[in-house]
């Protein structure tokens, strides 16, 4: 019983995802009120009708009370979490007890993150984003929603199965020699060759990495590239997993698991009916079976809808000397080396400097709008020089863009209007009346951005522009040759990266997770809970039980961290859990604890994938440690409860010391 819904303020559904149980539940409810013999309405309409009162009430409360809903819970423990981002209201529902409010909130933020990665700066303009998320064309909409739905499902699966997605940090394969060799290979051979090839069509490889399932074998960034943030890297891994799912279940092959993986494919196709307002311009001309066929082929093809050599357009944060530019366009090439092993190339695309300029303008207008709507006309006017500067730059920009085959007439006319209002009478035009024009400018800029970087097909594909297929093939073959001997080893290694057997000096220690939050990396003994593979935890109920405990512990530790507690120990049944968070400087010197911020219950989830909490935490902590590199670590342990607490604590401190070393493996 799960659902995630995005709605506009006017209660229009911009996206939804439901599991089969929820869908059935909705249809039953709707069926009850349905006249006999009448055709059941489209599922999208049902869900819209049922949620509309909630959505409308939410905006009423915001408008009239200045306070919106954040969550509901019912007596049978259904949870609803609501969050408003700009003009989009996200609602996540759980009715089977598998997810708590925290999980739902996290899902909402992750969904938003994925949308940002796919749509970039367009997300800053609500009207455009609305159009983008809900294309007029039904077929296109179906395809886009299906893509988003499967991303969400992939994320949920990873979060359930994979410790690295549980704690939201990248897990590396622990094999320093191979890792180093691979990095060298990526640098000297692969990236250099591609970047010096004429077939690269103006693109430049910035980052290259090899994933074995979800684990990182090697990562290389070219010298002039900005660092790839953990948040973006995690989001990209989700995308890669979505394209080439490593079906852990399939390999271990329990038949019901096969069923499970195909279950999410059930997807409702709206039937053409006279009431179907979505059929829009297509009207009755669109034929159901076609869509059905298209979907079927999609299902069999898994994801890459067209040519597999077509890169995905992704929008990632770029940190340069001049500043931080979120959501800058890149192309992502996923080259499957073997099932489970993927080479990923991230390239900088031509025109990407346009994106930076647009972002700068957007920021300027956003600031101006904020100041004006706060009634700070004075300071807005005082910013005259920068306004003049903006004016000149924008004029130049529009002229330049006009030459590269981009529709700028709308931008131009709004800009002309803006100028005529703003720059009259020596700056007196800067008043509250200008606010809508600031918004208009933002929308227009986002529109230009959209034209430049979003191809026609809505699934974030990038038009014809790409590294030539033959170049991609060559790259693939090169890496395959390099790794062919390691292939089987890597696949096994990814399942048993490190094991508890390697830690005999900690009797009674059942499991641990060690996380370097500065680097966004984690180490933990593998937990493979499948019916076939026996892990050290044994198999069957006990292993599942312990896995459940670990997942629960992570959630609990976040709950306390959110309220400012950096050390937690819990005796829970037969187990003893510890959680520690601490700061060190680069040399490993332990820095003193500082009062951590206490966040409200509905604050962004603690993690790195969406709204990176740890990055903010480090920034906050570093305020008192100027000029010093501050690192943040976390350790979670699970011990048997019979072990005396003194020993448990001793283990924890020894473990922290021991694990410190491997985390020094260079990532780059």
């Amino acid at each position, binding site marked *: 019983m799960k659902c995630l819904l995005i709605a506009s303020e006017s209660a229009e559904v911009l996206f939804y995802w439901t599991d089969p149980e929820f869908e059935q539940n909705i249809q039953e409810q709707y069926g009850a009120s349905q006249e006999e013999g009448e055709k059941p309405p489209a599922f999208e309409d049902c869900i819209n009708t049922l949620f509309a009162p909630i959505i409308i009430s939410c905006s009423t409360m915001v408008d009239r009370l200045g306070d919106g809903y954040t969550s509901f819970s*019912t007596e049978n423990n259904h949870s609803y979490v609501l969050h408003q981002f700009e003009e989009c209201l996200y609602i996540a529902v759980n009715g089977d007890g598998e997810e708590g409010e925290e999980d739902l909130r996290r899902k909402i933020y992750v969904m938003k993150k994925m949308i940002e990665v796919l749509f970039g700066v367009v997300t800053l303009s609500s009207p455009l984003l609305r159009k983008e998320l809900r294309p007029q064309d039904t077929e296109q909409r179906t395809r886009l929603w299906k893509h988003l739905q499967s991303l969400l499902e992939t994320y949920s699966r990873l979060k359930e199965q994979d410790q690295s997605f549980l704690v939201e940090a990248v897990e590396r394969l622990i094999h320093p020699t191979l890792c180093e060799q691979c990095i060298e290979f990526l640098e000297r051979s692969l990236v250099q060759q591609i970047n010096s090839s004429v077939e690269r069509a103006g693109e430049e490889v910035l980052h290259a990495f090899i994933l074995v399932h979800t684990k990182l074998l090697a990562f290389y960034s070219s010298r002039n590239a900005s660092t790839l943030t953990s948040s973006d890297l995690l989001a990209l891994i989700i995308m890669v997993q979505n394209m080439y799912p490593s079906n852990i279940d399939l390999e271990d092959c329990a038949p019901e698991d096969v069923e499970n993986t195909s279950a999410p494919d059930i997807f409702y196709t709206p039937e053409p009916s006279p009431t179907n307002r979505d059929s829009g311009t297509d009207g009755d001309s669109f034929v159901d079976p076609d869509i059905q066929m298209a979907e079927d082929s999609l299902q069999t093809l898994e994801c890459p809808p067209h040519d597999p050599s077509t890169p995905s357009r992704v929008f990632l944060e770029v940190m340069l000397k001049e500043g931080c530019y979120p959501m800058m366009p890149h192309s992502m090439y996923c080259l499957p080396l073997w099932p489970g092993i993927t080479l990923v190339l991230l390239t900088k695309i031509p025109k990407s400097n346009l994106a930076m300029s647009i972002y700068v303008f957007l920021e300027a207008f956003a600031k101006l709008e904020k100041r004006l709507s706060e009634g700070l006309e004075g300071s807005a006017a005082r910013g005259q020089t920068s306004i003049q500067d903006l004016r000149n730059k924008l004029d130049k920009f529009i002229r330049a863009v006009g030459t590269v085959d981009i529709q700028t007439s709308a931008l131009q006319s709004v800009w002309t209007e803006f100028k005529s209002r703003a720059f009259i009478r020596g700056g007196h035009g800067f008043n509250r009346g200008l606010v809508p024009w600031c918004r208009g400018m933002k929308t227009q800029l986002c529109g230009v951005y959209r034209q430049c970087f979003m191809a026609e097909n809505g699934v974030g594909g990038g038009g014809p522009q790409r590294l030539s297929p033959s170049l991609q093939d060559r790259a693939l073959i090169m890496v395959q040759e390099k790794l062919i001997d390691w292939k089987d080893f890597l696949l096994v290694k990814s399942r048993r990266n490190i094991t508890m057997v390697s830690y005999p000096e900690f009797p009674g220690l059942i499991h641990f997770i060690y996380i370097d939050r500065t680097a966004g990396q984690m180490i933990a003994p593998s937990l493979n809970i499948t019916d076939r593979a026996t892990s050290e935890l044994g198999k069957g109920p006990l292993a599942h039980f312990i896995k459940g405990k670990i997942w629960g512990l992570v959630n609990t530790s976040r709950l306390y961290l959110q309220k400012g*507690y950096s*050390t*937690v120990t819990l005796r829970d049944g037969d187990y003893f859990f510890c959680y520690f968070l601490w700061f060190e400087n680069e040399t490993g010197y*332990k820095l003193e604890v500082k009062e951590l911020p206490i966040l409200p219950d509905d604050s962004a989830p603690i993690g790195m994938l969406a709204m990176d909490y740890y990055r903010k935490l480090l920034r906050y902590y570093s305020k008192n440690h100027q000029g010093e590199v501050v690192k943040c670590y976390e350790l979670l342990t699970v011990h048997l409860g019979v072990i005396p607490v003194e020993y448990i604590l001793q283990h924890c401190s020894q473990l922290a010391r021991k694990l410190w070393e491997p985390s020094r493996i260079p990532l780059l």
Partner: protein
Amino acid sequence: MADNTVADSRYNYFFLYDGSKVKGEGDPTRAGICYFYPEETPLDKQELLCGQLAGVSRCVSELSSSPVRLLRLRRSKFAIRMKGDFLWALGCSVDIPDVSICNLLDQLINLFSFYNGPIRKSYQIYSQEDLAVRWARYLSHLQEGTTELHHIFSCLSTIDSTHIDPLLLLKAALILQACQRCPLVLAGCILFRGRVVSTQMSPDLTVKVMLLQVLSQSTQSTPKEVNRPRKSRLLSRTLSDTPPSDPPEPDPARPAPLSLHCPSTPGSSTSDDLLFSPSLSFHTPPGPLSPSPSTVSPQISYHSLPNGKSSHEVEEGVTGGLHDQSLDSLEGGDSESGLIGVGPVQSCDIPHDLNRHNGDSMALDGEKAGALGFRGQNSPGCGRRRTGIVADEKEGHRGKVQLADTGDVPPAPCENSSGPPLTTMTLYQHRVRGLVLALLVEPHFHNDTAAVEEVYHSSLASLNGLEAHLRTTARGGAGPQGPYTFAHYDCIQNTLTTNLSGRPGGAQERSFVRATSLLHSHFSHTEALQEAIVRNAGAAVYATRSVAQETYFLQQGGALRNSGIPNHQDSAFSLPSKARHRLLKHGVNLL
């Protein structure tokens, strides 16, 4: 300790909304608002909140096929109860744990049905204005005299046992037991200045009965309806018909406190169970003391006077805010109406009846019976020792009225068909200054003059004595302040022991309260969790719980200089042993 009422209210809104009044398109939302707190809220805001929250709740409960329990907003949250067309919502700030605010709302609703019966029926019988006064009364009762910690645990205020001679507690328990020799007496409790001294009732029930004390303590009364004759069903209250056939599993931790109040009973648990089963009154054999007939009649008439007189008023009062008035008048009445005897002080308001109370309040959980409370004292002083006895014939009248009344309002399940049916019962109250003896009795108790007499006499002297002792000894200062802060919550008796003052404390106290609230909610939804230590830069708090209790401990002083890295020499991890040692002297055994 704990005397400071935190003045600002913990809830910002409370309302009762009747959806059946707003069915059609044209019906204004205000028609459905039965009660809204704070009453001065502008009507359009009332309508906004009621309309939106009720609408959303309805929508969500349809989607989930289950009533909404909690609605959270960014800056506040609302505990919700939905029953039939009614919706109750209690709003508070986001700091209060979910479990606490939901408990508080349930308490409030139960309190209402305890004194007024089923909600639908009440709104048919009484005017909305009357009931509004009552809601306001209940709200302030639940809010009164407690600290933030009390709110977190939603627990009873009890007298501070550490300052009281245990013999007094024993004595209180014995008084209650003595009263039970009368087969019509079901269970009782003794309250002193708003705090529980000894109780045989379940915590839920005790908290409801305590309202009486609050009412009678406050002297100012709204005279408005004094002479309006009403259907006088005094304080008849209703208990669940369902015998406590499903008491929670016997709790191992219980015997200790129980032995305090009924040491003479062999097998305290059984006696408690009996106590609370509706039939239990019969199990106590009639006591050996049979009052002589001569005494009986004056005795009876005595209370009948005040009660007869107040029978309307009392009813009004208790339920409608006038009770105090009637009590005051009782006092006066005593002397004026020619009491035989010296001191004009009233002390005995007797059978107030009571009312029906919602079955699901589990008032009859035999298992939880008999909470003994301990806690600091405070105090409006009052007269003590009554001497006069007045004759009057209203007694009979009164009894009849009451009976008629009970007959009139049968324990109709009404709209709460889901809950167990309600039973009418009566409350007998005897007051000696700050001390109140409240007994839950069979409805026909008043008619049985012999029984009334017996109960009255058997307890009179001891109550006076107890009151005198409590008054003199209860003045002790705040609890022993050590270099530590603790809170010990007894889940069975629903009582709290703490050395934390109610005054807004220093940073460490606040951080203790915050940690406690977080850990308490964690405990409440994680069954297997037994022990926890949480630490931030400023303080470390240790918490431990068993089925019967939760204990929270913070060692004060010396900022814990540490890096947060695991270190077994860290002082935070010695908290458990410190807590074990330090708390022994507070009667908290963590071993």
